[in-house]
């Protein structure tokens, strides 16, 4: 265990917030579709992978600035999610009750998570890729922090804030919250829940696209990276309680700090074990996660 000093704590703090913000965003994208329309998206990580590849192509081949490529990634993922939604998911959502939808979408998206990475590997080799962007750093009290880390924290927190505002302040958000509380009652008061189901899935997928874009700025990408991020997003969303945006934020920060702390004091191997141990322990104490509601 290294010596505890101010620098050490500061590094943990920055890394914790950085990882936490990314994980919170990823968790929110999984949590909202689950809460609103009980979609368990097991291929969520593969959506992130697709977003990462779109942003990679935009940056490396078409020479677009990665931050500016974000709207492109967003719309690409939105289109893709629309395609997926209208090939099969809409049937499941209209026919089944909320409890049944969980398993049905779980198996359907499992099939998807088998297809997507292999399709990408088939079309574009399974090699590892990465690129560099804004690697210059700022100096804070003797700790060097890359600019892109700060930018990532800024982008993900502002997106989460915007999402919260949409859910809390707009009529659309109100409709979403109604559907979350009670499907049938929402229909009775005139909410078009088909539209709400569709838009919750699209919002989730778009967030996955942004996450993919932000992940490529820091980590390498390959077709099979999806599983890892699906699991992280699930851990975050489940810790906070599926369907809760605030829960996803708190879960994300918690997991981010756990990872940052245990990477520093033990080894990167132990950090994964600690994260899953935390998941099992918290679910043991609270079998439905920490928070309920949006």
């Amino acid at each position: 265990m290294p010596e505890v000093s101010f620098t050490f704590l500061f590094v943990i703090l920055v890394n914790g917030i950085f990882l936490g913000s990314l994980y919170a965003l990823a968790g929110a994208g999984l949590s909202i579709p689950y809460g609103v329309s009980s979609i368990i998206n097991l291929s969520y990580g593969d959506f992130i992978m697709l977003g990462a590849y779109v942003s990679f192509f935009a940056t490396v081949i078409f020479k677009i600035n990665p931050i500016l490529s974000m709207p492109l990634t967003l719309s690409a993922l939105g289109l893709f999610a629309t395609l997926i939604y209208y090939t099969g998911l809409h049937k499941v959502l209209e026919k089944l009750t909320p409890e049944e939808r969980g398993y049905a979408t779980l198996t359907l998206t499992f099939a998807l998570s088998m297809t997507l990475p292999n399709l990408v590997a088939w079309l574009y080799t399974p090699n590892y890729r990465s690129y560099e962007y804004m690697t210059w750093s700022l100096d804070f009290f003797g700790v060097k922090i890359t600019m892109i880390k700060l930018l990532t924290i800024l982008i993900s927190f502002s997106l989460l804030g915007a999402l919260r505002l949409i859910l809390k302040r707009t009529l659309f958000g109100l409709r979403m919250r109604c559907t979350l509380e009670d499907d049938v009652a929402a229909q009775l008061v005139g909410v078009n829940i088909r539209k709400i189901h569709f838009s919750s899935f699209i919002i989730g997928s778009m967030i996955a696209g942004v996450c993919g874009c932000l992940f490529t700025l820091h980590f390498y990408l390959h077709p099979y990276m999806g599983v890892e991020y699906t699991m992280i997003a699930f851990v975050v969303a489940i810790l906070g309680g599926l369907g809760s945006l605030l829960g996803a934020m708190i879960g994300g920060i918690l997991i981010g700090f756990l990872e940052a702390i245990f990477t520093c004091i033990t080894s990167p191997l132990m950090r994964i074990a600690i994260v899953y141990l935390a998941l099992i322990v918290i679910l043991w104490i609270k079998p439905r996660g920490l928070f309920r509601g949006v």
Partner: protein
Amino acid sequence: MILSKKDVDKAIIFILFIIVIVPPLFVEKYALDFLIYILSYLALVGAWNIFSASTGYLFLGTSAFFGIGGYFYSIIQYLLPYGLSNFTSGIFCFFLALSIGLPLLRIRGPYFVIASYALSLLFSNIILYYEQVFRGTTGRWLYIPDVYLLYSIMAALTISSWVALYLLRKSRFGYALFSIRGDEEAAEAIGINTTLYKCLAFGIAAFFMGCVGSTLSSLGGYIDTSTAFSPTISFNTLVMGVLGGLSLKGTFISAIILSIVYELFGATGYPYPFFVLMGVCLFIYLLYKGSVEELIKGRAP
């Protein structure tokens, strides 16, 4: 004489039994390896069915007990004779599952699916950490037994897991588990000790998974965390179980077909087109056949 449906089933079971017993007498070693893989998946799916299909808890952590079985075998392989050490690793998995089951089985629905997947990642990372920090290596050598001996042990395991599954469906214990799938609160209200039954079924499933893990690992003569705790094992088992609906026959057929397909195409150097096709077929099948709905609605098989 008109054969009833039961007689046909009996005849098919007899023929399958012969197919399992006869090959070691004249088949080549590679074909025997191939059969061992198919049998191991059959045994895993049987074990998965004992727990998941009966209680409705979708278990996505088959590789957790598969890997633990393999690692426990690597520790005790020279202390006990071959078949007995596999059995002992199964027993170890049984008790491990009993102790883990108490906290883990409180979690329900989609939460359980992810928590059980987390279980295999947890075991794999703890073992990897221990191996790298305290032993300085990441894998272990295993004693490779005669392939015929291995085959007979695997065949015995497969048959016993399916016999256990069959007996379970006919017994009081099985009915208790089905009632848990139907409605857990109601089952508790009519006086079924749900925790005990769930944990026992979980333990029995883990026992077979551990045995299969220890036996299959010794076929390669080497074990490390990335192969022993491979998520593919968990996912394949789940897919085979879910695709077969819940009936014994359906599960049996889907397990045989899928394991043959995986072994023929999935193990090649360029499996991507195959997996894409497989995923698309699975998607279409699930959408239109709806075997998932049977699972959800809790129709007794």
